[in-house]
């Protein structure tokens, strides 16, 4: 079963690896920005209790799974990071919505 913790850890680690191998340029810079956004959201989740099965939780899982698929493509070819940028941005937004329900 997917859990947000496992997915978020993996997506953040995979995004890090893609950034390390990506060529210099605006795409890499943009991905670095989105990586920072996502890691901030992850920081906000530390030591919080997250209720599974809510709309926000399921949306976060779905967004992270989509990001994970694009990351697999980029890991095979680091020039294909444009699709990853969009998915990580979406994941950061949706995880942010989940964070806001915990406050």
């Amino acid at each position, binding site marked *: 079963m997917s859990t947000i*913790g496992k997915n978020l*850890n993996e997506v953040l680690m995979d995004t*890090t690896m893609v*950034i390390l191998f990506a060529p210099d340029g605006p795409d890499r810079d943009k991905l670095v920005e989105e990586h*920072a956004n996502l890691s901030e959201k*992850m*920081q906000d989740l530390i*030591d919080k209790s997250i209720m599974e099965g809510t709309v926000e939780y399921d949306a976060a899982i779905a967004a992270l799974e989509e990001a994970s698929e694009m990351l697999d493509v980029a890991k095979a070819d680091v020039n294909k990071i444009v699709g990853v940028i969009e998915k990580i941005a979406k994941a950061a937004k949706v995880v942010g919505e989940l964070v806001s329900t915990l406050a």
Partner: protein
Amino acid sequence: MKKLKLFPAVIALALLAGCASPGLNKQQKRAVSSYAQSAQALNGMAGQEFLAIRNQVIELNKLTAAFSPTWDAEDKDFDRALNVVDTRTRVKAVATLRSYAELLSGFVDDWEDDRIKGAAANFVSNVRDLDSNQKIDDNYLNVFEKVVTGIGRIFVEKKKKEAVVAVVAMSHEQVAHLCDLLIKDFSGVGGYTSQLVTTASQTLVAADSYLRKSGEQPGRDSAVEAYDLGQLALQRHAELHAGISEAAEHMKQANTDLVDVLREKKPQPFKSFAHFKLTVEALAETAQYYTR
């Protein structure tokens, strides 16, 4: 006179009855022993890892602060969410699981009854000392203490069996809860290791970006060190922490099966003990690599 002669015979009969009385059978002893050894090893590693994770997060942030302009020089929050109190709380929880496993060892390793009682007192004290979110209702502890202090000099094996059956049954829920917390800390978001993943990822990207800039820069050595340490931290999480989480799941399952084994409810429930043992053995090798 007759009475005096009879007295040693009565004692001897009582002792014989004690020896012959039904204690734990071989399979039960093997199950308890295997579970206790694996649980002690796992929780020893987990305790060390909690401390190591905090140290790594501090080290990563200190290195990043040395080269990254995004770190506020006044901001000394190097351990981020992993403060001393929270870390100590987690270490206490694994110490509780470890003391539980030690107590179980005592029942099958022919410890003197006083030593068993000492181990029981240690476990009880650890449970009482747990934080509220770690503790299940601890009203059972009074009964628990009575059961363990009831082990006497005669009918030892029978009483030991009664005690270990009661100890495992009474502690089952508390042990399962602590296993759940351990699983969350080593794999889930919001768990303790999430801080290491977040910090190591941020550090790696910052160091990589810094090192890509051309020319000599004053923070270059720190960035190189941060890069290496960040990579090692993520690798450690993927291999060691995932293993601890998996082993904690096996411990939880084996703990449930132990209740049934001791009550002789399941004919072949020994798979979970083997899984637990193998996972912990593999984990010990991985841990040795990262702690050398």
